[in-house]
C-alpha cells in the first residue's frame, strides 16, 4: 500500500513538472548607441532636391511637344479627368500611407541638419518595416516592363526573384539595396551615404510602382488609384509627395507630364469600366506609353539634379546616383545601347573619372522630353 502511495504521489509530481509549461520571457528591448553621430559624410549633404530646375547643367529640351495621342487631346473624348484632377475609384487607397512613411523616413535620414545617427537609422528601419508599409510592398514588387514568368511563378514565392531578377525587381534588387543601407546605418557606417542609398532605393520603388499599378489596373481597377498614389502621395498636380515632390521642384513641366499620364490611365479606366478586365486594351496601352515616357524623363530629371549636386565631389550624391542611375538602363538601352553602356560604366565606378556635364548630356540625349 505504501509503495503504491509513493508511486501515486510520484505520478502527481511528474505530472505537475512536465505539463504545467511556463510562459516564455518577454524579449529584452535593445538599441544601438542612440544619438551617436555616424562617421563620414558632410552634414547636410544629399538633402533637399535642388530647386529651380536643371537650368545650370542642361535641362529638358525647350521644344518638347506632347505626342498627338497624349492625354489631354482630341483623340480621348470627354472623360472624368478633364478637370485636371485625379478622381479616385476607391476612397480607401492604402498606398498613400506608404508615401507618408517615405516622408517620415526622409525627414529622419536626409531632409535634416547634420548626419543621421544610428538611432535615426533604427527609427527609419522601424518605419520602413512596419506592417503593410513600404517593406511589405517592396518584397513583392515586380516590374511590368518585363514579361512575367511563363510558368506562372510569382515573385512572392521563394527562389523566384533569383530566377527573374529583372521582373522581380523589388525582392531581387530594391530590397537588398534599402536593407543593406539601413542596416549599415544602424551599425554606424557612413551615415550620409547610406541615407542617400535609402533615398534612391525608395524613389526607385516609386518609379517602378507607378507604372506597375497603372498596368495592373487592367484587372484590378483600384490599382489606378495606387498608380496615382505612388507618384503623388495622394495629392493633386499642384501638390505632391514622394517622387512627385522631387520632379515638381526640378522640372514642373515633367511633373505635369507624368500627372497627365496618370490622368490618361484614369480616363481609359472610366471609359473602359469593367473593373476586372479591359475591352479597350489599345487605349490602355496608349495611356501607359504616355505615362512611361514621362516617368523616364522624370527619372532622368532627378538624376540630372543629383549630378548637379555631386558635381564631381559629393560622395553621398554619388552613392545616390550609383543606386538610381542603373534604373534608367532598361529605357536607355532601348533607345541607344552605346550611351546606355557609357552610363552603366559610369555608375559602376567611383565617379572619380567622370564628368557631370557629360553624364547630364547623355541623359538629356536619351530622354529629352517627357
Amino acid at each position, binding site marked *: *500500500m505504501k509503495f*503504491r502511495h509513493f*508511486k*501515486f504521489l510520484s*505520478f*502527481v509530481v*511528474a*505530472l*505537475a513538472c*512536465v*505539463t*504545467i*509549461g511556463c*510562459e*516564455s520571457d*518577454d*524579449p*529584452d*528591448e*535593445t538599441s*544601438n548607441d542612440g544619438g551617436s553621430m555616424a562617421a563620414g559624410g558632410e552634414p547636410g549633404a544629399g538633402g533637399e532636391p535642388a530647386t529651380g530646375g536643371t537650368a545650370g547643367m542642361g535641362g529638358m529640351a525647350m521644344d518638347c511637344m506632347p505626342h498627338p495621342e497624349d492625354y489631354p487631346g482630341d483623340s480621348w473624348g470627354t472623360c472624368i479627368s478633364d478637370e485636371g484632377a485625379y478622381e479616385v475609384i476607391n*476612397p*480607401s*487607397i*492604402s498606398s*498613400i*500611407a*506608404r508615401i*507618408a*512613411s517615405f516622408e517620415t523616413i526622409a525627414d529622419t535620414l536626409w531632409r535634416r541638419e547634420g548626419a543621421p545617427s544610428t538611432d535615426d537609422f*533604427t527609427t527609419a*528601419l522601424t518605419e520602413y*518595416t*512596419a*506592417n*503593410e*508599409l513600404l*517593406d*511589405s510592398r517592396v*518584397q*513583392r514588387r515586380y516590374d511590368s516592363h518585363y514579361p512575367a514568368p511563363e*510558368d*506562372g*511563378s*510569382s515573385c*512572392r*514565392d*521563394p527562389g*523566384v526573384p533569383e*530566377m527573374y531578377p529583372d521582373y522581380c525587381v523589388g*525582392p531581387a534588387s530594391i*530590397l*537588398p539595396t534599402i*536593407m*543593406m543601407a*539601413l*542596416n549599415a546605418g*544602424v*551599425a554606424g557606417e557612413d551615415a550620409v551615404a547610406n541615407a542617400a542609398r535609402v533615398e534612391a532605393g525608395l524613389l526607385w520603388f516609386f518609379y517602378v510602382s507607378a507604372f506597375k499599378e497603372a498596368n495592373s489596373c487592367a484587372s484590378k481597377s483600384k490599382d489606378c488609384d495606387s498608380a496615382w498614389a505612388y507618384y503623388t502621395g*495622394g495629392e493633386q498636380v499642384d501638390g505632391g509627395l514622394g517622387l512627385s515632390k522631387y520632379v515638381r521642384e526640378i522640372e514642373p513641366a515633367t511633373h505635369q507630364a507624368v500627372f497627365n499620364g496618370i490622368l490618361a490611365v484614369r480616363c481609359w479606366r472610366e471609359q473602359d469600366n469593367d473593373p476586372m478586365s479591359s475591352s479597350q486594351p489599345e487605349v490602355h496601352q496608349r495611356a501607359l506609353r504616355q505615362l512611361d515616357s514621362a516617368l523616364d524623363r522624370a527619372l532622368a530629371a532627378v538624376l540630372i539634379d543629383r549630378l548637379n549636386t555631386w558635381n564631381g565631389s559629393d560622395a553621398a550624391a554619388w552613392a545616390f546616383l550609383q543606386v538610381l542611375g542603373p534604373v534608367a538602363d532598361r529605357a536607355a538601352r532601348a533607345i541607344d545601347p552605346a550611351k546606355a553602356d557609357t552610363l552603366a560604366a559610369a555608375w559602376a565606378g567611383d565617379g572619380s573619372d567622370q564628368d557631370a556635364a557629360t553624364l547630364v548630356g547623355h541623359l538629356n540625349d536619351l530622354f529629352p522630353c517627357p
Partner: protein
Amino acid sequence: MTRIVILGMICSVQTGYANPTTDTESDAVEVRARRQTPEVDESRAIHRTTRKQLDARQPRSTPEALHYAPGVYVQQTAHGQGSPYIRGRTGQQTLLLFDGLRLNHALFRKGPNQYLFTVDPRTLSALDVVRGSASVELGNDALAGAVILRPLEPALDPTRDAFILRPKVALRHATADGELGGRLQLDAQFGNAFGVLLGVGARQVGRLEAGGDAWRDGRAPTQVCVDVESVPCFEANGRSQIGTGYDELTADARAVAKIPDGHLTLAAYFYRQYDAPRTDQCPPPEAPSDVCLVFDEQFRSHIYSKLEHAPGLRGLERHEASVGYQRQHQRYTRTRPDRFPDTPDLNTEIKNLGRDAVDALSGFWKASSQRLSVSSKAHFEVRYGIDGSYEWVESQKWARFTQANITRAASRGQYVEGSTFGQAGVFVAPVLEWGSIRLRTGGRFAYVQATSPGETESASAAFSRAHWPMVFNLGIQTTHTVSAFANIEQGFRAPNLDDLTGRQSTGRGYQFENPDLKPERALTVEGGIRLSTRPIQVEVLAFYQSLDDAVERRLVDPLEGCSFGDFVDRACRANRAPQQLVNLTGTAIIYGAEAQAKIRLLRQLHLSGTVSYTYGEGDNPAEVLGQFDEERVPLSRIPPLNGTAELQWTHRASGAYLGMGLRWADRQDELSTGDVADARIPPGGTPGYLTFDARVGIRLPTRLNLALSAINLTDERYRTHGSGVLGAGRSVIANLELFL
C-alpha cells in the same frame, strides 16, 4: 519533446491495481442526481453531446465536438483554432462556460476566436449547447446562445470504502495531419468520500492534408499559393496546407470530496499549445509566401473550487457556488524571413512579436427552490443567483531586426495594458407548472464596467464605461409527449476590451478601437414542437432575433479614420481594409429554423439528423452609401443552410458498433462588406460541400475502447464558411483506450 513525453507517460503506467467494478463513464454510478442542464430552463432549445458520442466521432478538438449539434456551425481560421457559431453568431456573442464558470474573457473578438480550442475534449463528459439568448440565467455575452462544458468527474463509488486506482491510457493517431498523441488518466478513490481524477495529455500534429488537389490546373515549380489573395497555401502535393500543425500539452486535476448533503470540488486545468500557425496569415494574402504568423504559445490555466450543496429547504433545495482564477496567455511572432540566406553580409529577417494575457477572477452562487405545490394541479419553483467576474489585461508588442540585432518595443500592444473589465449580475427565474402547461419567466439586473488607462503615444483614449443592463424572459411549454413551446428572451452584450481598446490586423483588414460603442441588445422569439418518445425524438423550431445596436465592422476612409488626434496609425492607413467596429443604425435581424430528430429504427440501430437555416441582415454600416450600395446588407459570416446525419448500429453484448456520419452545407454567397474583403471567404462566396465518415469500434466498459474512423470518404475539398483552413481530406483516425 512531445514524443518523449508520450513515451514517458506510457512507461510510467503502473499495473496491478485493483480493477474497478464500475466504468467511470457508465451511467451505473450516479454520483449526483441532477437535472441535465440546470443552468437554464428545460424548455429551452438545448442539445447535449455525450462522452460516448465523442468517443465514436473522435473530434480533433472541442469546437469540432459540436459538429453534430443543431444550430451550431464550426468555423476554423486555423488548424489549431476553432469557433462555434450559434444561430449565426460567435465569439463575443456566444457564452462559453466551463463547469459553470466563464471561459469568455474581455479580449474575445467580434468573430471567431481560438479560445474554445484551449479546452481538451478528453476532459469532458458532455457539452450542452443552449440556442437563443440566455442572458437572464447566464449573463453577459449569451446573446445568441451558450456552450456549457461539463468536465469528467472522478468515479466516486459511495458503496466502496477503499483505495481504488483506475488508470487509463489512450493513444490516438490521425493520418490527415500525422497527429500522434495520447492521454494518461488516473482516477483514484480514497475511501468512499474522496476521489481524484488526474490526467496528462500530449500530441504532436503536423500539416493538415485537405481533400482534392490544389493544382488541378497545373502549378509553377515554385508556386505555393493558388493565387495572391487566396488562403490557405499548399505544398507541392496540392493537399498539405502550409500554416498548419501544432504541439499540445494538457494537464488536469480534479479532487472531489463528499460532504454532508453535497460535494466540494477543487480543480485545475492547464492547456498549452505551441507553434500553431495562423493559417490565413501563413502566408498572409499578397505577402511573400514564406511570411508567417505563428502563435508560439497559446496557454490557458484555470483553477477553481466549487461547492454543491443540497440542504433540502423549501426555498433552497440545492445551491452551488464557485470561485476561480483563469489566465489566457498568447505569444505570437510574425516572421518575414531573410530573403538572402546565401548572402552572409545581408539578413533581411524581421520579426514582429506580441504577447497578450488576460487574468480573470470569477465566481457565482446559484440556487433553486424545491418544487413547491401551490395547489393540486400547480407547482412552483424558482432559480436565482448572483455571478460576477473581474479581469485585467497585459499586452505588448516588439519589432526585432535580426541583422541589426535590435529589439524595439512599441508604445502599446494589440490592447492597452492595464485595462480592466468587470461585471456582475443577479437573476431570478421562477417557473409555474399548471397541469400540462409550464410557464416560466425571469429577469436579470447586471452591471458591467470597462476601464482603460489609455496610452499617450498612440493617442489611445483613457476611459471608464459602465452599463446597467436589465433583461427579462418569458416562456411557455406544454408537457405532453408532443409538446409545443414558445420563448421570448432578451439578451445583451456589453462592449469588451477588444472592442474598446483593440488595434489589430484581422483576417479581413485592420481593426481599430471604438471606445464609444454601446451594448448590443437582442430580443429572441422562438417557437416549436417537440416529440419525445422512446423510439422517436423530434424537435422543430423557428426563431427570430432582433438586434439593436448590433456591432459590425465599417470600412473607414484611411485618411480620416486612422487618425487619432495628432497620431496617425500608418499600419491602419496602409491596410487594404481599415475598419472600425460600430453600432449599426436600425435593427439587425437574424431568423431561421432548426430541426433535429433521433429515431431508433431497431433496438440497436439509431438514426439522427439535424438541419439548420439562418439568415441575417442589418443596415449597411457605411457612413455614406455609394451608388451601388444596398441599404440593408447581410450580417457577417452567417452560416449557410447546413445539416448532419448519423446512423449507428451497436451490438450491446459485445460492445461493437458500426456507424456513419454525414455533414453538408449549402453554398453561402450572402456576404457582408467585411466578408467580401476577407481572404478566408473565396470570391463570390463559400462553395457547398458534403462529407461522409465511416466509424467502427468496440467499447468494453472498464477494459478498452477502440475507435476507427474513415474521414471524408469521397475526399471532398471543402471549408466551412469563413474558415482559413480546409477540412481534412480522406484519412483515418484511430483511438485506443486501455483501462489498466
